[in-house]
């Protein structure tokens, strides 16, 4: 069950060359610098870029084979354009329902009421579309695409004009959507945060090519990952949440192999409805100590084995630690600290992770 794309496309000096298989499970983030071809790729998949040199196959359906193309309207896509493109002659409500009405009742899995309340659209329904603010437009475009109950969601930076509060409400919904309804999502985004929070896989694009497609965990295991160009390296641990007392939660990692699970103390409760959770820990949030310090507010003190010490720049090192369950935890500390603590590969240490920094 994949999306296979073979294509060559020239636009002036720009060349898009693809021979890739994208996973169609969960959320695949398309990550790359401005102008690398993300929008073009999405449009190609949607069938909106005219080219004869492309073969596109989604699951067992052929979407394009050279000159032959399945009409866009029959691909059952949910497409959100980079510039929210509402139909200006329709009301907000008619925009929302445009695709819904054209979806056979039997295929509808999302309904207007749910989408309207999730995206806070209720007060906007009767407003003329040209009077909407940028963020309102984006929300409506997203809602409209969702309401077609598509078999593939193509989202081109759908959250860029949203404020933090709106984002925090919509993101869990998107990630839940993919896992709950099984609709695969291809999400273009510039934000490493969005990738880490939403993506199951990441496709890295550069200069019109897909550099590599890898599961998020692998993408985060490389300290030089492009995702880190913003906030620096981070580890993402996968595990379950367990309530250990009133207001107290533990995050229990899913150990690799027959290793032992590691427990993290976390506060607050994720709004994720899934059973598997993610813990994103910026390497810069992880400190190392030789021995377990006492009388300190940091609650997660994990024994680790140092696997690699790399200089990430002139001043800082990234220390790759293995925690007891076999997962990797990255720590970024100054090279001076490495020297002063005389850290060595193979050595054991204590990683200090602030519990309050854990939840996401």
């Amino acid at each position, binding site marked *: 069950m994949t999306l296979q794309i073979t294509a060559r496309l020239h636009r002036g000096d720009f060349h898009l060359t693809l021979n890739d298989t994208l996973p169609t499970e969960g959320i695949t983030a398309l990550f790359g610098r401005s102008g690398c071809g993300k929008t073009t790729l999405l449009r190609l998949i*949607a069938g*909106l870029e005219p080219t004869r040199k492309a073969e596109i196959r989604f699951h067992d359906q052929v979407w394009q084979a050279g000159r032959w193309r399945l*009409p*866009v*309207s*029959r691909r*059952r*896509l*949910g*497409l959100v*354009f980079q510039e929210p*493109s509402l*139909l*200006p*002659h329709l009301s907000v409500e008619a925009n929302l329902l*445009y*695709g819904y009405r*054209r*979806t056979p009742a039997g295929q509808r899995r999302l309904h207007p009421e749910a989408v309207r309340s999730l995206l806070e659209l209720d007060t906007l329904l009767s407003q*003329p579309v*040209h009077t909407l603010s940028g963020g309102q437009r984006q929300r409506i475009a997203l809602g*409209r*695409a969702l309401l*077609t109950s598509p078999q593939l969601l193509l989202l081109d930076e759908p959250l860029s004009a949203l404020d933090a509060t709106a984002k925090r409400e919509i993101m869990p919904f998107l990630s839940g959507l993919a896992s709950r309804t099984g609709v695969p999502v291809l999400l273009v985004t510039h934000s490493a945060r969005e990738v880490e929070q939403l993506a199951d896989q990441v496709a890295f694009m550069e200069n019109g090519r897909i550099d590599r497609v890898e599961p998020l965990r692998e993408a985060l295991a490389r300290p030089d990952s492009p995702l880190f160009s913003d906030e620096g390296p981070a580890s993402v641990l996968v595990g379950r949440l367990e309530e250990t007392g009133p207001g107290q939660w533990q995050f229990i990692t899913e150990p690799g192999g027959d290793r032992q699970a590691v427990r993290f103390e976390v506060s607050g409760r994720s709004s994720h409805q899934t059973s598997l959770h993610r813990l994103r820990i910026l390497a810069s949030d992880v400190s190392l100590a030789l021995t377990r310090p006492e009388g300190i507010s940091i609650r997660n003190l994990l024994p680790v084995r140092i696997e690699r010490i790399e200089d990430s720049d002139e001043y800082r090192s990234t220390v790759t630690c293995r925690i007891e369950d076999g997962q990797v935890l990255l720590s970024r500390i100054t090279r001076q600290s490495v020297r002063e603590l005389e850290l060595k590969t193979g050595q054991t240490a204590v990683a200090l992770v602030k519990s309050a920094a854990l939840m996401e």
Partner: protein
Amino acid sequence: MPELSPQDWQAITVTLKLCALTTIILLVLATPLAWWLAHKRSTGRTLVQALVALPLVLPPTVLGFYLLLALGPRGPVGQSLEAVGLTHLAFSFEGILVASVVYSLPFAVQPLMESFRALGARPVEVAASLGAGRLDRLFTVILPLCRGGFIVAATLTFAHTLGEFGVILMLGGSIPGETQVLSVLIYDYTEAMEYAAAHRLSLGLLVFSFVVLVAVYSLNRRFDVVKP
């Protein structure tokens, strides 16, 4: 207006029929043609576009004469029609209908073309991605969004057909009840210096057209789409 003669009424009926049919036929014909012209980017396009405007440059009577040659019983079109058992088009309502369509074609095609070009590809792409097929998109996106262009095309066509008489007179032969339209009749009255009758009909025509146009434009204004 009790002063109108039966002949006047006949002419009014023929005229309204002609104008209405011309407008409808032209919109149906011009829409795909204008769409093609708006999106095709070849030399073919400019040639066709220029061709469409050509009927305009000939004096109407002269155009009527050439149409008479072409559509009459000895002309290529007329002969083909007669060969398949139909009758030629000279001096018939069908004939002046064809002539009006040809003559007003540019007034329908050009505004539509510009309005299709101004529409851009995005709204159509959006509708397609939301599951709308070709015809669906035409009726739910292109038509409403290009309504201004359609209004211009329809009103120009309608008004122009109302006033046109050179082509129609020549090709139609002014047969009462069949090809004698109001404009021909008014012309006849002025030529005969029966000015009272001419004024009466002209005024009627003006008032009627004004009312129709105001109605159409007000309706159009009510559904204005505002662009940011």
